[in-house]
């Protein structure tokens, strides 16, 4: 058996201008269509399960009800954000920022640990692309069939298959659009109103918007989004280190690659000078971003492990040990010791845990009451006939709880402060204005302006208590 020379895989130099070289260089790589081959295997099973679970969650959640409202309902016109039992209001947007920061740190942590796995297993762009490719496979056939079909001139079979594929894609996109809008307006009424043209104009716009972009992103753009548009692709590399789990081809074991007879056993192949790579190109054909993992770590790799499953299946067929392409680290590949628990990872983990705990505490401990105390602007102060100084305040009280409350109003900060209104009732989720007049004895006023504190205390619930600072103005006794 003669050794087949391995090919030069060094990429041609780009962006280099040396005298004598007369190639017209272009900054824009022409896109070649990627025909993704379907592959079975352990990681694809994990990936598919994750995808189905996520999609099921996405499509079903808006249909769940909590009492007489949707369980998850971001009611933008009403400025109320319902998530199961809890209702959040715009003032609590800081919680959303916290949640987003936590998600970002989660992404940093998982990236330091295992590279771009978010992309391969959970990113909506990947999930929908995989779904679209899955449909493509069912309708147009396997990779080879699809390549052949695209080369054919238009005929009845091609027209039928293409039409069916695009219809299926559009149907899924429509479902996606409706579901997405269903998070912002109750989906049960939405699906009744959409066909009868009774829904709000914006509902049609956003359903259409997500229909078009789901169709374009998952049907046409696919890996272009991951490679050229996604900002994460650009900065994920700074979170990588030599101990990050990456999908990698074991060059030491695989090279020199080459095709060989299947009858050759592992040891015979070794003796004949072959590495373990049989150069079947399967790892390239299954890659959704169309890269050759044997070229080394590339930023296009979304760590979906399709190449691992493809290579393992070939290794099994050949009777070779698995793992020529595997999840490993740069250090491990070079035979060095790999440290999973390293300061960087632990740092991210600690930050993540602290923030999750703080967030959970903040959400759990948040007081469903907010109020503002606004001093009357038209008059500094008044004097009553009894000779007391009065200041008037408007208290805007927002009950953020799911039940009505009556709040006790009190004020402190000066001796002998008295209030004319000492309680206010506010229905669940509403706000009320209560005007209060605060009286003070002029003898107690040593300065023209004194800080005072309003306290609102729910009558039924000791936990619900808020304070606000205000100023009390009056003539200073000299």
């Amino acid at each position, binding site marked *: 058996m003669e050794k087949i020379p391995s090919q030069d895989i060094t990429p041609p130099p780009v962006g280099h201008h040396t005298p004598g070289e007369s190639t017209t260089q272009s900054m824009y790589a022409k896109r070649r269509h990627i025909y993704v081959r379907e592959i079975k295997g352990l990681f694809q099973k994990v990936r598919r399960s994750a995808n189905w679970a996520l999609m099921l969650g996405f499509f079903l959640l808006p249909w769940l009800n909590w009492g007489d409202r949707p369980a998850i309902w971001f009611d933008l016109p009403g400025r109320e954000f319902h998530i199961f039992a809890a209702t959040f209001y715009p003032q609590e947007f800081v919680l959303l920022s916290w949640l987003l920061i936590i998600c970002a740190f989660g992404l940093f942590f998982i990236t330091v640990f295992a590279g771009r796995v978010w992309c391969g297993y959970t990113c909506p762009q990947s999930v929908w692309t995989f779904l679209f490719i899955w449909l493509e496979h069912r309708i147009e056939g396997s990779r080879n069939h699809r390549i052949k079909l695209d080369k054919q001139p238009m005929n009845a079979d091609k027209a039928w298959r293409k039409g069916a594929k695009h219809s299926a894609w559009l149907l899924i996109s429509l479902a996606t659009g409706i579901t997405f809008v269903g998070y912002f307006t109750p989906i049960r009424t939405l699906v009744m109103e959409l066909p009868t043209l009774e829904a709000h104009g914006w509902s049609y716009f956003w359903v259409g918007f997500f229909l078009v972009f789901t169709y374009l992103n998952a049907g046409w753009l696919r890996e272009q989004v991951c490679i050229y548009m996604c900002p994460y692709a650009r900065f994920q590399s700074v979170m990588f280190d030599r101990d990050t789990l990456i999908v990698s081809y074991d060059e030491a074991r695989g090279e020199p690659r080459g095709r060989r007879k299947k009858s050759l056993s592992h040891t015979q192949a070794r003796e004949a000078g072959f590495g373990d790579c049989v150069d079947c190109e399967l790892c390239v054909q299954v890659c959704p971003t169309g890269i050759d993992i044997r070229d080394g770590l590339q930023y296009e790799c979304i760590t979906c492990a399709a190449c691992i499953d493809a290579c393992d299946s070939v290794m099994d067929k050949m009777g070779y040990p698995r793992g020529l392409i595997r999840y490993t680290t740069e250090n491990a590949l070079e035979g060095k010791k790999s440290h999973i628990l390293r300061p960087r990872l632990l740092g991210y983990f600690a930050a993540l845990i602290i923030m999750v705990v703080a967030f959970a505490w903040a959400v759990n401990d948040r007081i469903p009451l907010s109020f503002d105390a606004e001093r009357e602007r038209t008059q500094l102060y008044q004097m009553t006939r009894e000779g007391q100084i009065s200041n008037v305040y408007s208290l805007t009280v927002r009950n953020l709880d799911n039940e009505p409350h009556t709040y006790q109003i009190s004020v402190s900060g000066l001796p002998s402060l008295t209030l004319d209104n000492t309680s206010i009732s506010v229905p669940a989720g509403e706000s009320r*204005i209560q005007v209060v007049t605060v009286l003070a004895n002029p003898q107690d006023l040593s300065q023209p302006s004194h800080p005072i504190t309003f306290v609102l205390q729910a009558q039924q619930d000791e936990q619900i208590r808020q304070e606000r600072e205000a100023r009390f103005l009056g003539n200073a006794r000299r």
Partner: protein
Amino acid sequence: MNNLWGDSLSSFWSAWIIVITLGTIALSVWILFANRRTDKTPDADGNVETTGHAADGIEEYDNALPQWWFKLFVLTVIFALGYLVLYPGLGNYAGILGWSQEGQWEEEVADAEERFTPIFAQYQEIPIPELARDAEAMRVAERVYLNNCAVCHGSNAQGGYGFPDLTDDDWLYGGEPENIMMTLNNGRNGLMPAWQQLGESNIENLTQYVLSLSDLEHDAERAASGESTFLAACAACHTPSGTGNIALGAPNLTNDIWLYQAPGQSVADSVRQTLRNGRNGHMPAQAAYIGEERVHLVAAYVYSLRFND
């Protein structure tokens, strides 16, 4: 007369804006096309032309703008021209869509009227004493009050210097529903003439007499000599007993309620000031501002304030 900030521009400023706007667009187009390079093939030596800028040996290519970029620029120019045809942007030219900020504002006001009119209309037929007991209606009314009346009468309706307290039982023009409606719809002008001509001594006597009417600390002797002047000059409006007259809006002087007593000012000083200089109170007619439906609701709100104690 037209001026720069008026309803429309003088033809000079209009032309000025048109020239600048169109000139800027023309200049942008000229820069775009005049600097357009399409040729990016290397020369005979294989060198691609550079801009001559170099930093640490790295040179900047003088490449053509990418086609999509160039086309996007052209599109923005077309968009700008289309916009200027449709919308007002060129001086006095109104645009073929006839859009204006004022028109948009009017539309929004009309929208709001359409939404809120039924809310106010439903209360229109309910008599004021009954409406004043309707907590939901009073919640709406309080908003109207806070937006339109609180500036003078205070958020708590207790008034202030020169602005009557609406929560007590003292009414300059009467506190019955029809009185309140009359005040709100047509406004009031409360005029107290100046009595400077009586002379300081008489004014002091009158002041002491007025203080005595409310049983305040006073100089009995001066008050006694003030009585005759009061009966001659003041009784016509304030009545001989000083209890006031709601037909004229003349205040009751016997109840120790003083409209013009500034914080820290003594009653005597306030009365002296009133007598010397007179007073001029003005309650604007509200029907013209907020409409009769809101007036009805606010009247009920003012009426309801008496239930608060």
